[in-house]
């Protein structure tokens, strides 16, 4: 089957560039998702029933006692084929195709929708396997492109197929010839780092947020019980709090278990997860910001957490925990030619900044090297954000009345991942020259940046 082109869809998403350029005129093979996909929505009617029961427990109980076996059977006989038909039809009408320049997803039963995703604009590709999908042997493939929504993921493909498709997409995005792209195969990866489970567990135990939520989950319900003696109030507050505590400790442990960072010609590979496995690939030159976070209790062990921002991507962790030296070497891999400025290299705001923001001003720092704009903030939880000059979209200087009286100003640097990095409370003259110089650096910094098609 051939694709009739973009005009067959009633709606479509634009992905950064105007999709005027369609692929080469050769035949485009449309493919369907894995046949297990319809089952993915099988739980929906059950969820509706459970939601109704929770919402109105008394009514649900009364209805349940009135329910006879015949009613139950009739209900199931209607519900299951309807759900199956819906699942089947959505699966039947969802196609995807890889052309020379795009990934096309055509979906929708009543409202047709065609998404053409430009491959050279790919910011990251994730292959994720939720627990059940792992049992069945299927995987979800998600492309991070600016402006794409959740609908633009391919769920589900069989696990090997997802990996092959990822390799093919990356090869095409990298600029290999279309004829050879599907034979290039997976690029070889070299493991840089693996976080041992013990270190991860200790690091989570040393995080204030873990203990804070746990303490809140224990103290608040106890106080409420003493005050009201109402079981429902206590349960209604205790359950969300316990959930938050669990997500903050056990949830993070499960999600960040066996964190592996590997390097390949196609970019950085991050594999992690105990139950749900996720395999992410960030092609070269896609990282907009890197943040090195140093919580108070980790400082004695010289551990840091490294976060990164990629435009259009939801994931933000590069390393859940690692010794500082190792983390810096990984950062140097992610942002080639960048060395993390050491503490003393960061210049503090002038002393009078203390009158603008007492105490906190001591945490602020700024360093501008040939390659990055680095700003530090935070007193207990120290954070250092690095922005390569080539990734700066715009520079802003902001000055409030109190700052003006003290001859201070903030300089904001905006990046494509919708994050701004701010050098706070700089001397006004320094800030003004920084604004000009940074605009100049961000303009010229692009010249020696790698091309979008990194293998071309």
């Amino acid at each position: 089957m051939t694709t009739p082109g973009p005009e067959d869809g009633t709606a479509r998403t634009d992905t950064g560039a105007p999709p005027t350029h369609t692929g080469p005129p050769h035949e485009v093979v449309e493919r369907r998702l894995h046949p297990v996909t319809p089952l993915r929505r099988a739980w929906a009617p059950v969820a509706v029933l459970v939601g109704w029961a929770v919402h109105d427990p008394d009514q649900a109980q009364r209805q349940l006692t009135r329910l006879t076996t015949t009613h139950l059977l009739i209900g199931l006989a209607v519900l299951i084929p309807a759900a199956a038909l819906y699942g089947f039809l959505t699966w039947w009408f969802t196609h995807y195709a890889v052309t020379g320049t795009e990934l096309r997803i055509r979906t929708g039963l009543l409202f047709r929708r065609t998404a053409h995703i430009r491959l050279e604009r790919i910011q990251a590709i994730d292959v994720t396997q939720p627990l059940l999908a792992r049992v069945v042997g299927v995987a979800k493939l998600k492309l991070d492109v600016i402006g794409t929504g959740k609908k633009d993921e391919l769920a589900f493909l069989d696990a090997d197929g997802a990996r092959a498709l990822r390799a093919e997409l990356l090869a095409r995005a990298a600029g290999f010839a279309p004829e050879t792209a599907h034979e290039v195969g997976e690029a070889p990866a070299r493991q840089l780092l693996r976080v041992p489970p013990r270190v991860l567990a200790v690091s989570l135990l040393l995080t204030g947020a873990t203990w804070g939520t746990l303490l809140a989950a224990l103290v608040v319900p106890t106080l409420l019980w003493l005050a009201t003696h109402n079981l429902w109030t206590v349960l209604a507050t205790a359950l969300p709090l316990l959930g938050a505590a669990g997500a903050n400790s056990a949830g993070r442990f499960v999600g960040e278990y066996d964190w592996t960072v590997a390097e390949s010609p196609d970019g950085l590979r991050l594999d992690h997860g105990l139950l749900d496995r996720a395999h992410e690939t960030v092609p070269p030159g896609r990282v907009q910001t890197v943040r090195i976070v140093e919580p108070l209790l980790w400082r004695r062990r010289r551990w840091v957490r490294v976060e990164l921002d990629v435009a259009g991507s939801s994931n933000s962790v590069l390393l859940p925990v690692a010794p500082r030296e190792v983390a810096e070497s990984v950062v140097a891999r992610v942002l080639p030619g960048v060395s993390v400025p050491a503490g003393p290299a960061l210049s503090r705001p002038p002393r009078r900044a203390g009158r603008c923001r007492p105490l906190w001003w001591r945490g602020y720092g700024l360093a501008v090297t040939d390659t990055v704009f680095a700003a530090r903030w935070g007193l207990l939880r120290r954070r250092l954000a690095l922005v390569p000059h080539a990734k700066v979209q715009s520079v802003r200087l902001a000055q409030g009345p109190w700052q003006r009286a003290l001859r201070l100003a903030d300089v904001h640097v905006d990046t494509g991942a919708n994050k701004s990095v701010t050098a706070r409370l700089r001397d006004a003259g320094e800030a003004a020259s920084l604004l000009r110089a940074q605009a100049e650096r961000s303009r010229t910094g692009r010249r020696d940046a790698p091309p979008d098609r990194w293998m071309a």
Partner: protein
Amino acid sequence: METGSPDDTGTAGTPNAADPARNERSRTEPPHGKPARDEPTPGEPAPGEPKQTEPVAQTEPAENEWARNERARNEPVWTGLPPGLLHMRRLLLVVWLGLLTVAAGLLPGLFLGAPWAALALPPLALLVWGWVMLERNWRSWRYTERADDLLISRGVLWREETVVPYGRMQLVEVTSGPVERHFGLASVQLHTAAAATDATIPGLDPAEAERLRDRLTELGEARSAGL
């Protein structure tokens, strides 16, 4: 530094000491009734609106490109906003606060007694204060097209200066609401890949807004550089 206090440097009428000759040719008409130094362009939209002259590039074709770029990079020539925006904002202020003043004065004055008419004073004071503040704010808005980036400076108490390199522009938008249209005004908004980029120039003459849009789009294409 060429940015002084925004109170005194905000308008188009600020002389640029370094190069008065070029300054005269590339500057908009001063908003406060000083005689225009340029011949009016034929397609001028409305009487009373200041006209924007063509950029230097077109009036001085003989000038060496490199020298021009160098100069543009070193000495920004600021352009202020035409007075239309100030007129519009002041009119809106007078209409709304005037109504409020009358309502606050008349209703309590009639129903509760004459001294209550003093309630009209706070809105009146607000009106007078707003009248002055609007002008200061309007004066503080200015922009300049440099060789490689656009500079926008604004704000009196909360000052903000934005630099957007032309290569980073994703989209240039010209918008004009019904009230703005009535006053013959249009806004130019620049979008980059960063949503935090807040680069809007309000209250431009539509012809200037379109010229700016076309010029920025052209420059953006020439220097385009993705994410």
